[in-house]
């Protein structure tokens, strides 16, 4: 039988495919491209900051560099990363379906994503944009002399791609589960993708309409956010963060989903407290919508609103914390293997905990006043989005690589890159916590000389980190063509995706399976050693 990779070789067979697995690979290639563009911009930023007033690039170029970095990394890498690549590839396999509910819509999503990416990149090429990814008004509407509308258009188009992907994932989870695959037997990755898809559907439209208002403001000279006409700049911030805070959970929930799969497989244990973890997943997705105002404690919001958003932020920390404890308890009396995906997974847990607890610092009102808009915040969200999400993404890539490509990656190199990324990450971002605490504001092209030591350390770490990301690019590319063939289930993992050949046939399942066991049924008898 032909695998999905052998179903056609021409460009047409890829560009017109409706196979969820091929579309996943299209996303994989596209977002890898965007990741290195965003990484290039990060390199410029870190190089410029080695010296307090290096002037390596001009202030305007610096502002464009961090805007490119953030716009590309947020909307063209992180948001689609796990949901669009692994959600696409794995959701039908994990629930025992032949494809997503709307395969053609799925392809349309990818085209919209690429169209959005192309428009945004075009805006960056013809001169860039200098507003930061936050597009705060009235700077973005009136004062910025850069290609705001072009880049906004790209982001909005990519937003529609997100909405349609989310729709597809939700409907698939509801309607295409194999017989016997009841909700409480779903792998937790599916729960995570489902919760993420709900956020995509409910939050992204608000971003779309907000950015459309900004564009209308800029093109037509409307005064919606402009105080000269009675508009309120804080209205923009409320609408923007109503999307952009849940967007963090769009990035981190799927990552947590991945970790559930990795931790159970490589400790040969069922997840500790399945129901609590599933409930926590939905809890995070819901409460994540209630906390957006914690980005605005010094923005001129009312004191009472600040109280409300602060306490709700403490509440959302609870379900996040539950997961960490559950992962720890899952290792207890397990059989732990330190394969590369597991190393990435353990790295995720460590960095996510640090990112999470510093989130509590930022939720604490009086303390947030000091560190908000400083490098403390920069470090915090990089711990969550890069230390967390990207680590989990790398773990997922290694874990399911044999399934996706039918080839094994070199294990030693994988382990080396996991360690390198972990160490490089800490060296890059731990000093940034200190910088923020000491009072270095973010988005600074020039900084006071006493901050140089920490900036130099951070830049040094960034170069280690860059190496850590380039390494997998090299050996995974090698593996895709020359790696040793992968067995169907190289890790001895549970889950429907491991019951079919690597790489899977075009139809996934010759016969739709019937599920009669819980997820992660690694067998108690193994554990009685």
């Amino acid at each position: 039988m032909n695998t999905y990779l052998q179903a056609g070789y021409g460009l047409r067979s890829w560009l017109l495919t409706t196979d969820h697995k091929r579309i996943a690979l299209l996303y994989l290639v596209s977002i890898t491209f965007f990741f290195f563009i965003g990484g290039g911009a990060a390199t410029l930023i870190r190089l410029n900051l080695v010296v307090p007033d290096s002037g390596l690039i001009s202030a305007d170029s610096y502002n464009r560099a961090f805007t490119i970095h953030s716009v590309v990394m947020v909307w063209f890498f992180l948001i689609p990363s796990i949901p669009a690549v692994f959600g696409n590839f794995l959701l039908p396999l994990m629930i025992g379906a032949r494809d997503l509910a709307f395969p053609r819509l799925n392809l349309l999503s990818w085209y919209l994503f690429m169209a959005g990416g192309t428009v945004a990149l075009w805006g960056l090429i013809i001169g860039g944009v200098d507003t930061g990814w936050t597009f705060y008004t009235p700077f973005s509407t009136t004062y910025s002399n850069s290609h705001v509308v072009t880049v906004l258009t790209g982001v909005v188009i990519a937003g529609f791609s997100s909405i349609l992907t989310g729709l597809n994932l939700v409907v698939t989870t509801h309607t295409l589960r194999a017989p016997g695959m009841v909700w409480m037997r779903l792998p937790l990755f599916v729960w995570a993708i489902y919760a993420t898809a709900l956020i995509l559907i409910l939050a992204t439209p608000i971003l779309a309409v907000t950015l459309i208002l900004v564009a209308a403001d800029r093109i037509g000279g409307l005064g919606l956010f402009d105080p000269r006409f009675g508009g309120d700049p804080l209205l923009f911030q409320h609408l923007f963060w109503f999307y952009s805070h849940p967007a963090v959970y769009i990035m981190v929930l799927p990552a947590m989903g991945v970790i559930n799969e990795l931790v159970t497989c490589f400790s040969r244990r069922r997840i500790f407290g399945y129901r609590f973890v599933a409930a926590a997943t939905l809890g995070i997705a819901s409460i994540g919508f209630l906390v957006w105002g914690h980005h605005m404690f010094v923005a001129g919001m009312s004191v009472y609103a600040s109280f409300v958003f602060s306490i709700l932020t403490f509440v959302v920390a609870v379900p996040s914390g539950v997961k960490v404890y559950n992962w720890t308890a899952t290792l207890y009396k397990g059989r732990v293997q330190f394969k590369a995906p597991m190393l990435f997974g353990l790295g995720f847990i460590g960095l996510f905990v640090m990112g999470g607890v510093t989130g509590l610092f930022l939720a604490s009102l009086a303390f947030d006043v000091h560190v908000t808009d400083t490098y403390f915040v920069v470090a915090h969200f990089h711990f969550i989005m890069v230390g967390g999400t990207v680590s989990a993404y790398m773990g997922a890539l290694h874990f399911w690589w044999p399934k996706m490509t039918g080839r094994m990656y070199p294990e030693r190199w994988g382990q080396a890159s996991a360690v390198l990324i972990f160490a490089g990450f800490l060296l890059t971002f731990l000093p940034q916590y200190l910088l923020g605490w000491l009072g270095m504001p973010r988005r600074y092209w020039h900084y006071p000389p006493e901050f140089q030591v920490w900036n130099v350390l951070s830049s040094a770490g960034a170069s280690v980190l860059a190496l850590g990301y380039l390494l997998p690019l090299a050996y995974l590319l090698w593996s895709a063509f020359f790696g040793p063939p992968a067995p169907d289930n190289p890790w001895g993992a549970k889950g429907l995706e491991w019951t079919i050949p690597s790489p899977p046939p075009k139809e996934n399942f010759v016969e739709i399976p019937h599920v009669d066991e819980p997820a992660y049924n690694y067998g108690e008898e193994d554990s009685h050693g």
Partner: protein
Amino acid sequence: MAMSGIAFWPVAASSYAAQIDWLFVALVVVTGAISVPAITALVWFAVKYREGNPADRRQPPQRKVWLEIGWTTVPFVLTLAVFVWAAALYRDHADLPAEGLEISVVAKQWMFKFQHPGGQRELDELHVPAGQNVKLLMTSQDVIHSLFLPALRIKQDVLPGRVTALWFKADRPGVYHLHCAEYCGTNHSLMGTRFVVMRPEEYQAWLTHAGEDTALAAEGGRLFREVGCSGCHENRNSPVRAPNLCGVFGSSVALADGRVVVADEAYIRDSILLPGRDIVAGFKNDMPNFTGKLTEAQVQALVAYVKSLALAGDEVGRVQLPPNGLAAGSVCRGAVR
């Protein structure tokens, strides 16, 4: 204690800042108490139960409801205590004290302009007396800025069309940083420089000196009209086109020969005495040479006046400020740059 050049702890210049530092310590302790055991256990389990290591693996637990409820509620209650503390500090600091020195702040791309109750103005630097409540009433002329005083652990966004406030009581004289913390465009990182806390008597002396500057600027304003500068630099119907001087001081000026210079005291002085040297892009060299026609004191007065124009700024779209708000220089009212 900071090692040579390596800082670990920011300077605290007020008792409020010290309280924030204690809050920071509490946060470290509480979050440590929540996370360190979990991470320790994670590492310990990973090592102890690594494959191939003989360990007791009998009867692994699948779930323990009391454990789940315990590790959900205990950390939450612990952190709740921090919430209450942090929120109380925040609320206490949100209300302006009744008594105190009121300083008006106008932010624009890319400078902060301060005006003291006696009318003394300063640009980007802020001088305040120690041991006294200081209230900053702030607004912006263009985009959102944020006044950040790290040594006091406070910041507040400065919005167009609205007055926001910040207050503090600094008690440790010294020179600290003053930053813009909300991204505001090209020179965001160059906005704001020094925050100077002075002993009250030093502050009084400074005020007097700054007051003299103000008087000097007023003298310069009279000269500006008498010797004829205003005929071209202020009158838009004049046959001779000359650059409007509103807000020029401190800004970057593009010259006809392509250079860009910062308009500082020396530049203004040169422009009066050697007008042919630095011609602003888009203008002709029509300005008479004033060398020998003005005394040194008069030149100083004129420079002070041009400097004061930048402090007053252009007043397009200004909101109403409190009574002692910055008065607009007459030249700049309605002027468009």
